[in-house]
């Protein structure tokens, strides 16, 4: 129904997609898989008209079309089900169902909704407000709205994250039925189970290119190999003597923030450890770090840091440093100069003059090789220099460093340098916990790997005792065969 030929897209110098071709046939389900940053989102944005392509062609029923804005996509019958439902929570089910329709006909819409819901076995009260619905129900409603709006190509982005088993079954049944009715479906997922059971064909993206295209049934091993970069079999993981003192202890911690949340996470990180958190984006790593930092109170369960239970809503402790993924939005103060950042990070300095903190700031700029001067504002720095600035702000007394994507946007030298600094900074009696989409980085830097899947810890093992395949299998939802191999305890709750 829709054919993509040789699509490419670049953002400045960054090549996000390069020569990607695939076709979505009517009456079939086509899977798209790939690592974080493989180019899946960009591809979907092009298909839905949010982003324009830099090269290549899109054919709809054999005719060249241009997708310059979302309304074009709607006109060609392309509908997308987003990970976060794009609905209006304050409006009623019926009002949401009618949204985007040209004609205002509530009576007709009510009848249509009832008919469609019955056909798919969904249950809706048209006058309930959408905010009272579960994510799964909102997804069902969104699906009906798209079908009602005439969508013949449905794109689903990680549709099963955070929905119940029963809703998942309903969704799969609905998708199979739509397929039988002649719709074309693109399913973006990292859960190979789903791909296996639903898809007729699958395209694997890696680094913006098509790494493989397969027909059903799939060779699981080949699929995994296509998805992830091949790595040297054995990197030498850093060997650090693991101390006995607990730094962070999670005891059955539950939160429902985000799509996946965190389900009964129990884990103890001890002094000397460098823990790498792996998993697809939004599987629970970010939430885990926020809780460990004290920025998010758990809904149930307990956290202890350095043996003390964390008071709720604190987050401003001086022995923990947190380096967020979005450095400018979450970690730095745009509009403030480097000097002002350093003054705030250091102690003392009640009264300030133009010279206050200047020497300290200059020293930090030199030490951390930041391309800027004390009066440069944070937003004027490049991404790599922003990360250096964040590193330079870590106070000396910090014993726990929490990081999201520590080397994102950094070139190889900068990344190496950053890790040297981190290992140097890590006190004997402290620990580092970091999340990274880059398995190589985890294997190279972490002494222990924890893999998140759907808000659960699915694998928790010393780096030395695992390998690259086990981790990639865990990321895609397959529990590893290696058991807990150290006394630290593997406490992730495996799905049955």
């Amino acid at each position: 129904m829709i054919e993509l030929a040789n699509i490419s897209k670049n953002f400045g110098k960054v090549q996000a997609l390069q020569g990607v071709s695939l076709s979505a046939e009517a009456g079939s389900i086509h899977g798209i898989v790939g690592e974080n940053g493989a180019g899946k989102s960009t591809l979907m944005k092009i298909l839905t008209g949010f982003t324009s392509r830099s090269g290549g062609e899109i054919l709809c029923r054999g005719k060249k079309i241009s997708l310059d804005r979302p309304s074009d996509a709607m006109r060609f019958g392309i509908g997308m089900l987003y990970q976060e439902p794009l609905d209006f929570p304050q409006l009623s089910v019926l009002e949401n169902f009618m949204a985007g329709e040209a004609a205002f006909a509530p009576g007709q819409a009510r009848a249509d909704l009832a008919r469609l819901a019955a056909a798919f076995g969904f249950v809706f009260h048209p006058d309930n407000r959408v905010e009272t619905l579960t994510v799964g129900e909102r997804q069902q409603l969104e699906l009906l709205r798209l079908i009602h709006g005439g969508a013949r190509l449905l794109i689903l982005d990680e549709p099963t994250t955070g929905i119940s088993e029963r809703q998942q079954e309903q969704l799969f049944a609905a998708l199979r039925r739509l397929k039988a009715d002649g719709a074309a479906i693109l399913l973006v997922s990292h859960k190979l189970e789903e791909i296996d059971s639903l898809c007729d064909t699958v395209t694997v993206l890696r680094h913006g290119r098509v790494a493989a295209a397969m027909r059903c049934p799939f060779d699981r091993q080949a699929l995994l190999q296509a998805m992830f970069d091949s790595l040297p079999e054995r990197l030498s993981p850093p060997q650090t003597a693991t101390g006995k003192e607990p730094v962070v202890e999670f005891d059955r911690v539950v939160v429902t923030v985000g799509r996946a949340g965190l389900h009964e996470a129990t884990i103890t990180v001890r002094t000397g450890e460098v823990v790498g958190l792996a998993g697809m984006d939004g599987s629970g790593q970010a939430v885990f770090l926020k809780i460990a930092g004290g920025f998010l109170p758990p809904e149930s369960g307990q956290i202890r840091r350095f043996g003390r239970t964390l008071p709720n809503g604190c987050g401003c402790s001086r022995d923990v440093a947190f380096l967020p993924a979005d450095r400018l939005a979450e970690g730095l103060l745009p509009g403030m100069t480097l000097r002002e950042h350093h003054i705030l990070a250091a102690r003392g300095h009640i009264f300030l003059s133009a010279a206050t903190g200047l020497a300290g700031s200059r020293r930090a700029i030199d030490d951390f090789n930041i391309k800027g001067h004390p009066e440069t504002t944070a937003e004027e720095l490049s991404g790599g220099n922003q990360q250096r600035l964040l590193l330079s702000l870590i106070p000396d007394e910090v014993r726990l460093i929490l990081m999201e994507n520590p080397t994102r946007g950094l070139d190889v030298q900068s990344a190496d340098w950053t890790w040297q600094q981190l290992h140097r900074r890590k006190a004997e009696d402290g620990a580092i916990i970091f999340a990274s989409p880059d398995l190589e980085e985890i294997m190279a830097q972490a002494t222990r790997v924890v893999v998140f899947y759907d808000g659960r810890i699915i694998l928790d093992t010393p780096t030395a005792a695992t390998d690259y395949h086990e981790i990639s299998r865990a990321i895609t939802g397959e529990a590893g065969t290696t058991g807990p191999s150290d006394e630290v305890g593997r406490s992730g709750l495996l799905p049955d």
Partner: protein
Amino acid sequence: MRYVQFMKHPLFSRFARISVIAGLALGGVGLLLFTLGISPVDIGVTLARGSILSLQKFGHVLTIWIPLLLCSCGLLFTFRAGLWNIGIEGQVVFGAIAATLLLREENLGLPAAATLILAHILSFIGGGLWAAFAGFLKNRGGVNEIFGGLGLNFVAQGLILWLILGPWKRAGVASMSGTEMFARELWLSTPPGWRLAPAALVIACIAFAATAVLLGATRFGLQIRATGINPTAARLFGIHPGRTGLLAMAIGGGLAGLAGGLQVSCVYHRLLPSISSGYGYLALLVVMLAHYRLRPVPAICLFFACLAAGSIQLPIVLKLDSSLAGVIQGACVVSALLVHGLQKRQRGEL
């Protein structure tokens, strides 16, 4: 020579920007007046004569400038912390009530000077507590400070009406015209021939200096700014955004309360329902016109005070309604917002 450089610069320099704002605002108002058949020059001359061209009139201008400056300083604290302190009117009212609490007592047994000092301290505390209450509602109750402040404004207005009509009314009189005048020695003293109390001027200048130091040259000021810029990141620097915001509210409210205290001690010498004189809302315009910066605030306050004081002349001399001054004020603020908005856009597109 310098002017040529301005013209070359892609963004307006500060000087050029102010000219553009003034030109836009006054040009717009002038055009409006012209179409109504009123001479803008007459208006300008009348306003100037009624405000700066006599020492006595300038005293009146300063009487308005003082509370306006105090309120504007208060708002700088809250704006820097990223908070919209709409409740400032209520804080002025509450400060006035707090000062009146002491000043209306006849037998405190304290010397007049001590009573006055205490009354002004109390007005600061009163305004500060009222603002902190709005901050508390935000931190604990999740009530946006705009709605909380607005609600508290109504509460303060109700409270002052109740006090004036109820417990604090003049003997035998139930009137909106205010409480009994304070004892003469409890007026902030005004030398013969002066039109304002020098002490009030000193208080205002000290408050402005303190604001400049606290916001511009202390760690605390930096923390307030950090909270306003990015509360998420501020926490990484060990700053408690809620607590810092609350403190900014309390200080801002305290300055507004002090303005209220001075309104009773040196302007009206009694408590009346419209004691705030709308200075809180006017100060919001001042601070917006100043683009939330400290330096231009005294000048803009002075300009607004001149308009307000000079506008009395409009009905006397030109038989025009004095609300014209409000039109000029509004036009200035809209022009400033427009210019800042355009600049931002220009910068964004560059």
